[in-house]
């Protein structure tokens, strides 16, 4: 590993069993990202349907329905992100903080950017009727929120990619330099495409229990709304069969090709194919039967997500394992030296073990 920086870690023991930290990181991150998908996808679809609503009034209603979900989803997305953040801080301290520092300006700009985007989604939701006659202004609120929502994942993905590439820690020069590393853009595309797909399922969940009476006057029938949701879930997911492998094969290299990683990703691809088949069947079902397989679709989607999360974790571990061992050795060596030096300096500087 010549030319690769080997820094030392925090010289304090892990506060919890590693397995537990991994579970918190993987499971809650998936939950977090699902709600982020709902939030970003909701903003994109709301913008799209509000735009269509300028010509066809009923789409304005649909856009409003979607907009109503964004603000609750965003709160849950934020709160579910805190646990994984805590876990990644603990498990990958050296890796995460190094990537943060190297992209620091953009990393910290996430805070004001998200605040502004959230305030825009609130304004968009609560000023819907007040700005009825100023549609352009109203559309620009959600349009700007969409742009911010689309930019923030780039910062996150640049970071989590850079943290797996210790050799690049002394090569990159700021955010844009790290952004151009392989894998960032394919994973970004993978994420962005997942947003309308997940939101499509959210729409099905939202409308499947609505009765004809409840939908009267909206211009939509129940089956039409469900079909719309399913289509949003189906076609972007089909696109993932192209983008997904691209993201997979541009992942940072691991010392050995781990069959477990390939197996997990392979299984997720097979399950995704099965899910698409069920989605296709659902989309083409008769009005009275559509939605019958919603639970199966959701179960398959959860299974795909869990497998992808697990595969991603296995890959992350494999990618940094050799470097991590060197960091561990260096940290131990440093602590031993610090203790020796402290003992040697007695009694002038009384040492104390942590």
């Amino acid at each position, binding site marked *: 590993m010549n030319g690769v920086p080997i820094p030392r870690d925090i010289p304090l023991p892990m506060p*919890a069993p590693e397995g537990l930290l991994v579970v*918190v990181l993987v499971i809650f991150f998936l939950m977090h990202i699902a709600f982020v998908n709902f939030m970003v996808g909701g903003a994109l679809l709301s913008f799209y349907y509000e735009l269509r609503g300028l010509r066809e009034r009923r789409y304005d209603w649909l856009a409003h329905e979607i907009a109503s979900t964004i603000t609750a989803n965003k709160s849950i997305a934020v709160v579910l992100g805190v646990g994984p953040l*805590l876990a990644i801080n603990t498990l990958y301290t050296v890796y995460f903080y190094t990537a*943060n520092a190297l992209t620091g300006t953009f990393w910290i700009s996430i*805070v004001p950017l998200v605040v502004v985007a959230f305030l825009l989604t609130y304004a968009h939701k609560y000023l819907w009727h007040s700005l009825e006659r100023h549609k352009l202004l109203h559309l620009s609120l959600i349009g700007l929120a969409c742009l911010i929502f689309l930019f923030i994942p780039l910062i996150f993905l640049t970071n989590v990619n850079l943290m797996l590439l210790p050799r690049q820690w002394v090569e990159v020069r700021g955010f844009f330099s790290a952004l151009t590393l392989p894998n960032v853009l394919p994973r970004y595309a993978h994420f962005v495409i997942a947003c309308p797909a997940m939101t499509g399922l959210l729409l099905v969940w939202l409308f499947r229990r609505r009765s004809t009476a409840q939908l009267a006057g909206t211009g939509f029938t129940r089956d039409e709304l469900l079909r719309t949701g399913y289509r949003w879930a189906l076609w972007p997911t089909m696109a993932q069969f192209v983008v997904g492998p691209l993201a997979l094969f541009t992942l940072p290299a691991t010392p050995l090709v781990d069959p477990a990683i390939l197996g997990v990703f392979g299984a997720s691809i097979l399950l995704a194919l099965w899910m698409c088949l069920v989605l296709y069947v659902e989309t083409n079902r008769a009005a009275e039967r559509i939605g019958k397989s919603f639970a199966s679709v959701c179960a398959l989607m959860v299974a795909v997500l869990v497998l992808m999360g697990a595969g991603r974790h296995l890959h992350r571990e494999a990618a940094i394992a050799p470097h991590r061992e060197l960091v561990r050795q260096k940290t131990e060596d440093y602590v031993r030296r610090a203790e020796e030096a402290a003992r040697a300096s007695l009694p002038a500087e009384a040492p104390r073990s942590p």
Partner: protein
Amino acid sequence: MDFPVFHLDILGNRALVAIIAILHVLVNHGLAVGLMPLIALMEWHGVRKNDPRWDNLAYRILFVAFIITTTVGALTGVGIWFSVSLVNPYSIGSLIRVFFWAWFVEWLVFITEVCLILAYTLTWKKWASGEAKRRHVRLGFALATFSWITMAIIVSILGFMMDPGNWLSENTLLAGFTNPIYLPQLAFRTPLAAAMAGIVALFLVPFFVDRHDPFRLEASRAIALWTLIASPFVLLGGWWYYSVIPGTMMENLAVSAMTLQFMGWLNDFLWIVALTVLAVLITVQLTIVSRRGVPRFAYLLPLLAVFWLTGHFERVREFIRKPYVIGRYMYANGLRVEDYPLLRRDGLLAYTTYSIPLSPPEITAMPDRPTGTGYQGAIERLQRGKDVFMTACSRCHTTNGVNAVATHMQRMFGDRPWSPSLTLDYLSNMHNAQPYMPPFPGTQEELFDLATYLELLQRSATAVAGAQQAGSVLATPPGRSTALRPLEGRQ
């Protein structure tokens, strides 16, 4: 610091943390911890008196709190982690190792709090009568309780950073959590949050109730009473808190409150603080006794005053624990107290992985530019000096921006050339003269290198780029301990 060094050379790194953290405290105390019980009480009072005006007012105030807490409040909370991980990764990394379970529980409480505020706000109109309304009132008090618990957990970490207490010998979470400053600080912050929320609510009432409506006076009086009841507890809690601050920290009070430049004005400042508190209390008292009420704009004064006082209190709390970032365990530069014997023996740079190369303006500003091999030696010394500055000084200081070394050097040495022969003695004894400064962590040679680098600042006002702009390179190892080389051979 064994990370690439993030550095803001104009604003200063501390200011980044301060802006985010203070904003978070203002939202957390004024619009969540203190305001939620007040709103729940208003709703409960409205139900008890069968008066929908209270219900309406409570909902409107809640809506403001809901928007701000779920945007600015939530994100600045996460932002504190983000900013501290950039500015002082070793301190936040260490705190997370010690307080992981406290943070984990706090996260679960936070999830509950967010779910409750969503439910409380979004069901207000739906659960409007009968048993549903009573359930809604209970929801409000549950939200208030969980808001307080989140603060009660985090305050322990803040206390720990000032005085870790028995953790230094026992190394357990319990020892860290029950640090000597914990309960006094909680006893101070709880009524402070209540009083602050009262001021916020007083400010908001005129926006939601017409001035000709007698309810405006009635509601304002009740909220003013809430604020007034909390006030003596703020003073009592504050006194308890003050009494447990270690004596060594009190030596920093003047600089903490006023900065080095204005520390002589501490007494005047304390008078201003006392008069401001008095003005706030008079405004609140006037609300209670006045028959015609207090004009809307008059509430702007107590609102700004209470925000300023709380923000300033946070600055003092952050600074007073210097030279430590975690009391008696880690210095503000991110180096542990027990690292010092090693670093003084082998050198700070012997254990530094990253370096930010000298920029062309820094090289141009060299006071004496030798030629030939001397030039290379001078450049290397300057580079080492910069590395020492970035590792040991840049967490708190900029070169020419906020809290600039150049400003301090100018004050100390004026226009004389800031050559090492002039500055070295002061730099090596700085921590004796200024108790908030950590001792220099490296060797005498590294101190000389640092002095050589600081001499540049008299000639160059160019901002120094951090790793987020300039990137980092592997530190060249001139002073690296030879004993580390076998380890590198294995890489």
